[in-house]
């Protein structure tokens, strides 16, 4: 009897029942807070609201987004700015994060690893409003250390904002690389040392190849998160971010469309259309990336 009872625990029907039971909370959470809003957003975007009356208009909001000279001009402009925002993040973030992670794991700062790790991660825990405020004060031509109005000219405003954002978030890619570096088995490194390899040689010959998959992960996370970027730009430059929209990215464009800004009156239906387009763009890029690139990035077999 006893054994049979135990066996019943392993039969398929019961297994699936338990499987369902255990995944249900997570599934429910995911459906309510991720799947449902996505579909609801699309649903809203095919309506228009006129004086409190909702009516179905099909894809007119999308047509308007891509044909109205003001809206489509601002959309493409925001997309290009956003790609620049992403590119600056990527180009600056990866080498700097790698250098930091390499230094922290090197023997040179062995005693202070914990200290540096904490220090470099602290900005990521600050509110973006505080980061923006501090940096604006530091680079203020009136009270700060730079005489040039970095946030006030079209050429410098977006790179300046990107650097502030990188400064804040550099701890995250650094932690990815750091954990990958400390996961490398000690015996390989020891063998290299016995063979007489220098620190540089060990790093480029052994450590670097072993952590390459991390770069793919960092790239795609940076992409998703800069494409969804909004907070630092809104807090410093407002909802119609100048000069001459040079710091306008998809997030601020969406905000302006959905909630309105200054005298621009928000339109939730049109804003939902913008949000859907942004979502699809990020989805396609991310999926494409995984299909084409990430599968080829494999760690060296040990």
């Amino acid at each position, binding site marked *: 009897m006893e054994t049979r009872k135990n066996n019943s625990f392993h039969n398929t029907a019961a297994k699936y029942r338990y499987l369902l039971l255990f995944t249900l909370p997570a599934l429910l959470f995911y459906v309510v807070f991720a799947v449902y809003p996505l579909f609801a957003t699309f649903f809203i975007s095919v309506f228009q609201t006129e004086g409190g009356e909702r009516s179905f208009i099909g894809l007119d909001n999308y047509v308007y987004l891509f044909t109205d000279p003001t809206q489509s001009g601002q959309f493409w402009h925001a997309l290009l700015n956003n790609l620049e925002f992403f590119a600056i993040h990527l180009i600056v973030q990866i080498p700097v994060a790698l250098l930091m992670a390499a230094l922290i794991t090197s023997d040179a700062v062995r005693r202070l690893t914990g200290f540096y790790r904490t220090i470099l991660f602290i900005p990521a825990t600050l509110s973006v409003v505080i980061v923006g405020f501090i940096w604006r004060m530091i680079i*203020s*031509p*009136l009270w700060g250390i730079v005489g040039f109005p970095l*946030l006030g000219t079209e050429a410098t405003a977006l790179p300046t904002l990107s650097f502030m954002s990188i400064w804040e978030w550099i701890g995250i890619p650094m932690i990815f690389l750091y954990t990958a570096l400390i996961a490398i088995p000690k015996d390989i490194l020891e063998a290299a040392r016995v063979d007489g390899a220098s620190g540089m040689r060990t790093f480029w010959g052994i450590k670097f190849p072993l952590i390459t998959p991390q770069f793919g992960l960092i790239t795609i996370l940076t992409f998703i998160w800069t494409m969804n970027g909004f907070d630092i730009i809104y807090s410093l430059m407002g909802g119609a*971010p100048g000069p001459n929209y040079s710091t306008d990215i998809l997030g601020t464009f969406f905000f302006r469309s959905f909630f309105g800004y*200054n*005298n621009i009156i928000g339109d939730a239906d049109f804003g939902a259309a913008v949000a859907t387009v942004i979502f699809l763009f990020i989805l396609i890029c991310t999926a494409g990336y995984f299909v084409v690139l990430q599968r080829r990035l494999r760690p060296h077999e040990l």
Partner: protein
Amino acid sequence: MKSRIAPLALALATAMIALAGCSGAGSGDQVTLQFESWRPEDAAIWNSKIIPAFEKEHPDIKVQFSPTKATEYDAALKTRFQGGTAGDLITCRSGALNRENIKAGYLEPLKGLAGLSNFDELSQSFWASSEGDPYCVPVASVMAAFFYNKDIFKELNLQVPTTQAEFMSVLQAIKSNGKYVPLALGATPGDAWVLAFMGLYNEGPNYWHGEDGRQGLIDGTKKFTDPEFVEALDSLKSWTPYMPDGRASVTYSDATQLFALGKAAIFPSGSWDITAVTGTSGIDVGVFAPPLPQAGDQLYIQSHPDMGIGINAASKHKKQAQVFLDWVATSEFQTLYANALPGFFGMGKDAVKLDNPLAQAWSDLKTGAQLTPRLGQDILSGGNPDFEVTMENSLQLMMTTDKTAAEVADETQKGLEAWYPPQMK
């Protein structure tokens, strides 16, 4: 032990919540009105002066002042209207934004409210629907002009300018002296509205003759590219050499600080900044009117309807809310309000005595002047592309790069022609 205490604590907590719920409902007759506002900085004044005065006369009504940050107010309020969680009393922006809320049916019509008879039709019109029905009680208007530091003027032996030529020579004299920033005005993109509200709409009405120019744009008989508007833009551009170094990223609060700390001589701004510029370091501040293009011209001053109060159409306590609005319409409230908030002027028919001398000096500027609201607000705004946003973007470039007044006028006019029927070709 643990298992025995837990249910007990739970039961106790439940009982307490139930009790708290009872006591709220139990005192029955007293109604609390939630009051939406975009001025968190005024919370102390409402809570300690104005609301107590009202509650003393109406002990059965309580008012809860619940403000949201000004830049987030309109979006947040809209969300709350849609979700049915907006307060009973709504502070209304004037013009297009308010008409949008009226059109969506969020505001209760006020037709027949007795207190409205204390306001003339022009004052009421800023919060009326497109059909002209009143939806908010006018509360306050603000003005724009120029603050100046009296001590610096004395030190450099300067006279208050009345014409554009005098204004320029005063600015030049301060610049040549080198000790002070002549004009505390920033042109950072995030605060581009400053260039419109305190710049163009401040000095400009003297060129486009206030309502003449504004109504001309509204009914389509004038264009923004007409000489009077381009001259106004040109005169604004002539300020640039006197603005602080690195003006392209000097913010509004930087400029306010610069003046309040006594480091700048002149601060083009609004009456709402009276407390901000006199509060911190106690400098001696005066005010002068926008300079005239030629001596002897008629003076025009920006006096903008800023704030009204209306009732949420979905409120459960409309009757009590109307009692509050009737009280807001009295000169008792207006005296209380205008004196508690120097620089915000009541809009009622009866004159209000102001205790703050600087606020009185501002109010005195109106003598002999013709008043006009901000050019780009109200009817001209709210389109696609928005007049105000397009112009502010161009103005910011005009004040920081070599973009000319004519180019700004041209871009703004094109934006207007894209959607505003009377201006369409």
